[in-house]
């Protein structure tokens, strides 16, 4: 079954997009602008993990899901560094500016170029990869047409854990309640005594950190290159818009859908054979090289038909 395999690939890719889109959506909700530097925050996280992983390579330790234990330390480093970069940028650049949503959007493009330029200066424009042995797909799943490695499983599990923790944070803690209140209505939140500045920093931390983890996984999934984050950014935007801007749960759902659509492009040409009630010859002749294009078209369609996204509140 090719379908199962593609869905599995989609799930892995989705996990990365979800990690990126949550941060983007959080920031869109609270700071109220489309942060084009988010993709490059992912890149920064990935390279921070690369450095940490390289520095700790001598340290032994057990391995987990085909990954050495130090890799998870590197992952944490990716989280911390990306969060730090995001917070510092917010403090230094975005906060002092008073230029409206569009001005901030353009500023963030400039910030993205700065991140990318710095990464490129230090690590050159060549792509690179983590020093992790590449492994074979899990044997037990191959008969089903699912070819995922245990690295992919690690990506999915970590993402699920992170997303679950975020859910718990938002729903069951005081901080999360404040964050939701703030996203809902900053003025009201402030009047009711919430320290909105602090909450904003927490939001940037969480958003940037998740982006860093997403970037690290993107580097594990493909390779690392200075453009990796920016190339993914539009897909992440598509996910955020599909889910409804500002909605964390929408971003999760949107990321899942966009990731699966992106990876299951080969199915489109043989669509008739998969769906009941339509002739077998039916198919949409779109090559896999247009996977991202399809995602963008979905994004524009969602913007036109339902700008609030699937999980957003109706107007």
């Amino acid at each position, binding site marked *: 079954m090719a379908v199962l395999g593609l869905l599995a690939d989609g799930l892995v890719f989705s996990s990365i997009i979800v990690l990126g889109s949550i941060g983007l959506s959080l920031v869109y*909700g609270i*700071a*109220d*602008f*489309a942060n*084009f530097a988010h993709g490059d925050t992912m890149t920064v996280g990935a390279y921070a993990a690369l450095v940490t992983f390289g520095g700790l390579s001598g340290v032994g330790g057990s391995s987990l899901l085909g990954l050495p234990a130090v890799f998870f330390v590197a992952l944490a480093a990716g989280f911390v560094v990306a969060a730090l970069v995001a917070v510092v940028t917010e403090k230094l650049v*975005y*906060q002092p500016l*008073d*230029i*409206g*949503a*569009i*001005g*901030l*959007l*353009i500023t963030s*493009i*400039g910030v993205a170029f700065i991140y990318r330029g710095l990464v490129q200066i230090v690590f050159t424009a060549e792509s690179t990869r983590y020093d992790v042995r590449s492994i074979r797909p899990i044997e037990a799943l191959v008969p089903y047409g699912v070819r995922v490695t245990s690295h992919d499983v690690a990506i999915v599990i970590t993402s699920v854990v992170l997303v679950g923790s975020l859910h718990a944070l*938002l*729903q069951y803690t005081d901080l999360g309640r404040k964050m*939701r209140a703030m*996203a*809902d*209505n*900053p*003025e*009201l939140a402030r*009047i009711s005594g919430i320290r909105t500045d602090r909450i904003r920093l927490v939001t940037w931390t969480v958003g940037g950190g998740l982006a860093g983890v997403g970037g690290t996984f993107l580097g594990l999934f493909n390779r690392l290159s200075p453009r990796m984050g*920016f190339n993914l950014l*539009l897909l992440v*935007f*598509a996910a955020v*818009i599909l889910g*409804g*801007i*500002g*909605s*964390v*749960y929408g971003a999760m759902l949107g990321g899942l859908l966009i990731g699966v659509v992106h990876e299951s492009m080969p199915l489109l040409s043989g669509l008739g054979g998969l769906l009941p009630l339509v002739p077998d010859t039916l198919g949409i002749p779109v*090559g896999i*090289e*247009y996977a*991202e*294009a399809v995602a*963008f*078209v979905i*994004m*524009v369609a969602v*913007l*036109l038909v339902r*700008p*609030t*996204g699937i*999980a*957003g*509140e109706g*107007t």
Partner: protein
Amino acid sequence: MVDVAGVVDDMTTAERGVTAVVVVAIVVLLLGLFSGRLAPTYFLFLVGLAGMYALLSLGLNSQWGFGGLINFSVAAFFGIGAYGAALVTASNSPVSDGFSPVYGLAVALGLATVLALFIGLPTLRLRADYLAIASLGLAEVVRRVILNERHLTNGSLGVRGVPGFFADWPVLSTFPEAMPGLRIDVPLGATVELGAPFYRMLLNVLLVTVFAAGSYLLLSRVHRSPWGRALRTIRSDEDLARALGKNTFRFKLQAFVLGSLVMARRQRLQPRGAVRRGRHRRGPGGPAVRPGVAGRYSRVGERGPRKRRLRRAIPGVRRLPNENPRGHGRRRRPSGAGWSAHRRVDAAPPGGDPAAAAGTHLVERRRRGAGTARYRRP
């Protein structure tokens, strides 16, 4: 004699800054040229490049400045212009070759119109920041198509052998070779030689200058025309324009197509005669966008818009007591900033009750409706 002091006096601070930077840059370039550190051919190349960016900025200005449309697909129009011209004229074009570059220009403009309709029709109804993202996405689609449809565009190999624009013109085609080589002792030292490459580049620069100047004149004429007036009204208050019976979407679309055409005119630009996908790959929001911003979007040849003067005249409009400094009351029309500020003055006088100001904010937020969706309550 131009009244320099008066002109400077008339400028806003931002305009003064930009002008100062431009003047300094020109002085540095001229110094480089006269001291022999900058080869004349390269100097002309830089000037030509500046002219191309000027064209791009003019195009973006007619979209963003006139109509308030934030177009992030500048690079796509640049690319389609270059490809449209190159595919018709180049010697290794997979589609056709040998046509006169003049036809190339026509094809480029035609393609740009089609692309502008393709991108504009679905997206122009969107709010400002959505429009930016959506047009960026569609521009990416264009890039993918150019990259992957190898039988049409040669994919990532690019198109080579694009003839010069004047290749089949009577005198100009042989002009660079016919001109005598010159050796000039420049004032500050070195000796420079001017040969065929220099004259070829000179022709290109002239062409770009003519295009840029022509576009500028056309656009400033358009800006003053009734059509431009209607567009400016739409920009400051779309509802008002609609109430006056204008079809705002249509005007916006026209502005979009117009701007795209100006951008596509940039096609005759590849100084080395090769169109490579990579050249416009620098991508969205790249250099093409920034000149438009730095040039303080909004006008071609019209100084100090009334609106801004007005805004400066009313004390306290820039920032009201409780107005959120981060732009949380997201302005619906990005470039109608002055307008919304006025409105807010009506609602909450400067120094007024902060709670009241917050209250108007709430109303504003609710009225904005779409796109303010936030976290769902559990």
